[in-house]
């Protein structure tokens, strides 16, 4: 188990966030309305990048004035405030890990292992991610770098294999549905940008003062890949991409690579790795929030509890999809994003008590 907190590099953190973002695109479900696809999404992504850059300024200012550690800054205000902040962010982390697990479960049981009870996937996954989170940040952060590389290789393979399936006629103007749709798509994307949470909580573990490089690198790469994947999916599936569950998987099923057949095996492998890493990150974030509230507790115990809660939510979501869909809605997710990762750092940065003393580390 994590015996000592170790630092990771900014690159590893960026890779982790990239993987987490990729998961969200893999799990596109039209009925959930967590994001858009289609040409409108191409513009929405660009608008979202601009909004996110603005949203990030709160944390950036906090880093300058109070240091990169949000909890330390909150502690300087008051220990009770620190606990409150930890509780808020911990709930957010739990929400994301639970909904990620539910989406993962849905993919497995609806596409790969049809007619099989969902608990058979979810319980081993819960155990595995709890173990990874308990091992500590370094374990899955280090894994993220080769995993990100693997994702990029798969994207390249997919591009090459789908080249002959491209139908230029499927493209149309991203402004076709008007600016309203573009803004709606951008807001949805921003609201579900849960990666701000691990960025804020884990950036202090990189040992660097300024988060600009990590943020720029991560956001840039993620959005470029996302745009590329949207383009590819539109080019091969057209409007059907907006109607189909897991369109990326649909595109991978079409892609044929010579004698090796189609790429859906590669897609499934990437899916599991990406899902594992994403859920581990949020469980770990939840664990460190809980440790702030209960300092004597062990990370292993917290990650197990959070994993169990996520598993429970996933099974409930499977049984009552209408109810559970609301948990991951734009309003709730957006509320946490805005409150927890945009406004909170900004507010802390404005509090005189939270400011770092001169010469303090």
């Amino acid at each position, binding site marked *: 188990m994590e015996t000592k907190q170790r630092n990771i590099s900014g690159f590893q953190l960026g890779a982790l966030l990239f993987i987490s973002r990729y998961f969200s695109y893999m799990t596109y479900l039209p009925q959930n309305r967590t994001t858009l696809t289609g040409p409108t999404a191409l513009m929405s992504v660009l608008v979202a990048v601009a909004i996110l850059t603005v949203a990030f300024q709160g944390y950036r200012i906090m880093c300058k004035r109070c240091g990169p550690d949000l909890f330390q800054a909150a502690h300087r205000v008051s220990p009770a405030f620190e606990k409150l902040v930890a509780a808020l962010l911990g709930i957010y982390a739990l929400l994301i890990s639970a909904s990620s697990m539910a989406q993962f479960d849905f993919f497995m049981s609806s596409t*790969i292992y*049809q007619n099989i009870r969902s608990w*058979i996937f979810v319980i*081993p996954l819960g155990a595995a991610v709890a173990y990874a989170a308990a091992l500590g940040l370094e374990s899955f952060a280090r894994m993220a770098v080769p995993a990100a590389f693997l994702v990029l290789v798969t994207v390249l393979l997919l591009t090459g294999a789908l080249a002959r399936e491209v*139908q230029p*006629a499927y*493209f149309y103007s991203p402004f076709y549905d008007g600016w309203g749709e573009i803004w709606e798509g951008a807001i949805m994307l921003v609201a579900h940008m849960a990666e701000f949470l691990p960025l804020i909580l884990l950036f202090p573990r990189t040992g660097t003062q300024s988060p600009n490089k990590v943020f720029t690198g991560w956001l840039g790469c993620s959005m470029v890949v996302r745009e590329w994947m949207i383009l590819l999916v539109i080019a091969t599936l*057209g409007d059907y991409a907006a109607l189909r569950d897991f369109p990326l998987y649909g595109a991978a099923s079409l892609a*044929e690579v010579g004698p090796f057949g*189609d790429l859906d095996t590669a897609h499934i492998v990437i899916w599991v790795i990406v899902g594992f890493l994403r859920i581990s990150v949020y469980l770990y974030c939840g664990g460190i929030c809980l440790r702030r509230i209960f300092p004597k507790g062990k990370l292993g115990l917290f990650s197990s509890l959070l994993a169990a809660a996520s598993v429970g939510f996933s099974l409930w979501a499977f049984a009552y999809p209408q109810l559970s869909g609301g948990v991951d809605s734009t309003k709730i997710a957006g509320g946490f994003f805005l409150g927890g990762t945009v406004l909170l750092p900004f507010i802390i940065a404005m509090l005189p008590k939270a400011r770092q003393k001169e010469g303090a580390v």
Partner: protein
Amino acid sequence: MKKLIAVLLLILNLTGCMPNAKLGDRDMVEGMAIDKSPNGTYKITLQISQPEEEEKPAQPVILQQEGRSVTEAMAESSLAQGRQMFLGNCTLLAIGEGLAGEDLRYLLNFFDTNHRVSPNMTVLLTKGEASELLWLRKEIPTLSAEHVAESAQAGRKGGWMGYSRLSDLTLDLKNQNCALLPIVTLEKPEEVSSQEEGAGEENSSQSSGSSSQDSGSSSQSSSQASEEEKVPPKLHYIGMGILQDAQVKAVGDASASKGWAWLTNSKQDRQMHLEDQTLGKVSVLAYSHKVKLIPEQKGDLIVLKIQLKVRSNLVEWDLGSGEKPDKADLETIKLLETRQIEEEIGAFINATLRKGYDPLGVGLLIRQKFPELYRAWEPNWGKNLPEIGYDLQVSCELDQDYIQ
């Protein structure tokens, strides 16, 4: 390590929770034919591949079941065989004439939701009963569903038709609500004589469509030592079915089907027989073609410019004089080729676009270039589509190197 052992023990407890079947307990379905039975239920015919044994060719198993849905019929088949029906290897789906006129969405949903089915499965419409296509294997053991699917691939490469995969069908229906499927028929021996007077092209089309049959025939001659010499049925591609709202609404003939092939940018080697009283007979092989569809607005009208560039090789010629074709002959050949292509494309347009069917995705092209106009036309697309004009520009080039 203790935790790892605990996890492994946990996993062991899951043994048996995941339903699966031994490899040997599955039947590999090679091909599937779906018809409508007289009492309104679905009749499915499954061609099941058998593993080859030493020194013995594989014996095909043909299974037929009925059910209120495809799922029910498949379940009945599994029950009858005592094995799970495995569709991962299914290369052919044949839809019978009786079913074609109905809403195929219900049927297509079965394949869409079953992740084991390959999206590259060939889908064909059959004149008459689709099951006859699979039963044919009893007479010609080498004519398996896989061979029929390969024959369709050969037909596409030979320029008889466009793509006919499940994925194309699904995507076309979802994106432009219109799709095309090749229609195949089995030509029985007594039908051969009545069709001998048909156009030369139709006879030549048999050579491509029945290529597998030639091999089938040759195997038949070696395998069948019957007293009477039977002429086996032949596979014949007679045209294309036009689907809208997942129903076959119209049919295009073989010429229209070839026009369809010209308008898709797929690699093909199209053999064309050209004959002229002044020229003689020539055979060209069009090995490369590139088509561009460009909608243009001319006032209130939309004109679809179709630019087709074809490169061909002159393969055979019989000019009467016994000499090689000269420059003037080559020009004539190109002209004849162009005319034939234009006729075929024209037949396609008349069979589809002029009747309000949009398998080419012209609407998508208009949406791409003239979004406002498309928005205005979209509610009555079926009525607006025939109003579109066409500007067909075909240019043919012959490789003349070997003639020099």
